[in-house]
């Protein structure tokens, strides 16, 4: 998605106003236009007109984060749909006898792994490797034993 910028923030009433000269633009008009814009961001009517205007920046930040979060969710949803459609198509057109493609058996991880999880994963890798080595050793001994028995 990099390079595709879509502005989901509501359009500010600046362009129209900036065309007007300084003296022609009453503050009241600007505030009247800004009010619904901030209400969309979660600012109450009372907070907008009677509250502390220095708090509005936090609402703006919150709104931007919400838009970002929603964008991430939609992107992830697209990824799952891609997987689902891809799985169906791959299986529908797969050669007879080939291993069927499976839809991911668990959701994609979107949070960072904890130290315990990383440790457990490492431990499992070591155990799996050890099990593989033992199996290899067993197979070798069996084959070797058979050859010696001949």
């Amino acid at each position, binding site marked *: 998605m990099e390079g595709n910028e879509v502005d989901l923030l509501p359009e*500010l*009433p*600046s362009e129209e*106003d*900036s*065309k*007007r*000269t*300084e*003296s022609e*633009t*009453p*503050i*009241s008009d*600007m*505030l*009247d*236009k*800004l*009010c619904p814009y901030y209400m969309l961001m979660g600012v109450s009517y009372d907070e*907008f*007109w*009677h*509250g*502390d*205007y*220095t*708090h*509005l920046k936090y609402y*703006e930040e919150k709104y931007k984060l919400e838009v970002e979060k929603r964008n991430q969710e939609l992107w992830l949803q697209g990824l799952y749909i891609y997987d689902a459609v891809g799985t169906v198509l791959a299986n529908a057109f797969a050669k007879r006898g080939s291993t069927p493609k499976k839809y991911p058996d668990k959701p994609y991880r979107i949070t960072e792994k904890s130290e315990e999880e990383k440790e457990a994963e490492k431990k499992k890798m070591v155990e799996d490797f050890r099990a593989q080595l033992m199996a290899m050793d067993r197979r070798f001994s069996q084959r070797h034993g058979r050859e010696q028995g001949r």
Partner: protein
Amino acid sequence: MQNSNKTRIEFVYGGKPYKLEYTAATLKKMERSGVKFSKLDDMVFSAPEILFRGAFLANHPNESNATIHEIYKALKRTADDEEPKYDEDGNEVDALMAVIGSMIEEAINEWKGRSGNSGWKVTR
């Protein structure tokens, strides 16, 4: 505890606590009463009490004009007792009105910044 960078004037007059500030609603009300914010510089000199009265609208909307006038005189005296300040041109600065002007300017510029409206400018 107030978590804000907003400029306010707080004082006690006649045993009553006052908090003067400007909000979106008060700016609108002041403009409707004829205040021209684009000419704030001139108004600080020509109509200081009107601007000062506007600062009462948010928290003391029912305060009488007579009391506001008394407070204006009293605060002006207090402000004038301090060391005189001079502007770039060497004129003595009215300390109280300098604060009132900067409070209005702060509010307008804050809103102006929010709208991204480059057509608005307050200069002092």
